[in-house]
């Protein structure tokens, strides 16, 4: 059967993707970020993860407001890097897993009553692509398959923090009902504190970020109870996307082992990384 072996929370900052492509891994302004991912990449290699379920959001790359899905997921053979306005990143399309993805869609929609929009063509932007090559090798080819799960955290009304938590629980059920042996990591991307619009542009809150990273490990229910307004006040309006980390945590065993974490806040965004081991599978 399918097993969840790891949960990962990660920021998804586009500037870091550009820095990666420009080979700035050791530049002083970026080194604290990229170095922070290395222990996670090493641990994940040893954990032999087959598929990564990415709970992330699109940023005006694939989805427009003519039809804006609250929850969408990919069931494609592969996912091309999106053109976000500056040309697509120089990365190969990321392999998918149609068989597993359709199983997840069946389980989410029929068993758990999550009405997903199911996508056979989906380009992916920095919401998925920024952390991906920092966690799994992309050369000579991608060392991972992905299932993108896109969440509307852009156009209010948004799904609640609790709804993301329940989505995580439903994903666990889907993974564990898969008949084939498959090792799965679940990721929630986004945040941490940042505000990108209005006079409050540039708002950040390191204390809140660190408290969030601590509580999501041991007391996640406190974060599930918070409203979007709470997230926006504490972390900035765009930090509301932190609720996607709760999707990851909801998919994990109640007790988890903290494997690795990193935090770096040089510019606009508190950039967090959290790697958790599922204790039900160890």
């Amino acid at each position, binding site marked *: 059967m399918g097993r969840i072996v790891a949960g990962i929370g990660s920021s998804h900052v586009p*500037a870091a993707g550009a*820095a990666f492509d420009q080979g700035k891994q050791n*530049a*002083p*302004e*970026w080194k604290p*970020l990229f170095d922070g991912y290395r222990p996670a990449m090493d641990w994940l290699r040893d954990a032999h993860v087959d598929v990564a379920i990415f709970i992330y959001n699109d*940023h*005006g*790359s694939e989805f*427009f*407001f*003519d039809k804006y899905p609250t929850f969408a997921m990919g069931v494609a053979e592969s996912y091309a890097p*999106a*053109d*976000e*306005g*500056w*040309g697509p990143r120089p990365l190969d399309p990321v392999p998918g897993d149609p068989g597993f993805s359709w199983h997840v869609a069946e389980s989410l929609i029929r068993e758990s009553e999550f009405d997903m929009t199911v996508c056979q063509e989906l380009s992916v932007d920095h919401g998925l692509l920024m952390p991906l090559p920092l966690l799994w090798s992309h050369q000579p080819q991608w060392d991972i398959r992905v299932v993108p799960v896109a969440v509307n955290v*852009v*156009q*209010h*009304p948004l799904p*609640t923090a609790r709804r993301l938590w329940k989505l995580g629980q439903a994903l666990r059920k889907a993974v564990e009902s898969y008949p084939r042996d498959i090792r799965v990591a679940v990721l929630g991307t986004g945040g941490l504190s940042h*505000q*990108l*619009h*209005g*006079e*409050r*542009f*540039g708002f950040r809150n390191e204390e809140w970020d660190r408290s969030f990273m601590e509580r999501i490990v041991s007391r996640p229910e406190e974060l599930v*109870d918070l*409203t*979007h*307004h709470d997230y*926006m*006040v504490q972390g900035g*309006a*765009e930090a509301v996307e932190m609720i996607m980390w709760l999707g990851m945590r909801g998919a994990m065993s109640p007790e988890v082992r903290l494997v690795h974490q990193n935090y770096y*806040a*040089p*510019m*606009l965004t508190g950039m967090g990384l959290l790697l958790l081991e599922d204790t039900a599978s160890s």
Partner: protein
Amino acid sequence: MSESRQDSGTIEGTYVFDGAQSSKGYRLNKFFFSLNRAENRAAYKEDPEALMERFGLSEWEKRKLREKDWLALAREGGANIYFMYKMGSVTGDSLQHIGAAFRGETLEEFLSTRKVKGAR
């Protein structure tokens, strides 16, 4: 706890992108979204007025874009930042340029509030 409707007036300097904003900004955001395509970026660089016209922007929207009045576009125009910042690919304005303008600062003034100015 159930989610109540967000009141965009309750966080200072913040314009929550809700239904009203999204309806108001629909054409503007569609125009920004078009910049995901290389041919539209080239078309804008060739003749910005023609591309704005093609997307049916109002006189107010066109004027605010010409003036780079990012704050008015977000606050009154319903522009979403994830869409609007794609303008940088054709005007050269970075997110930090746009952000400094939101705050009524120069780029240098804004960057002086950051820990690591090069991380962008």
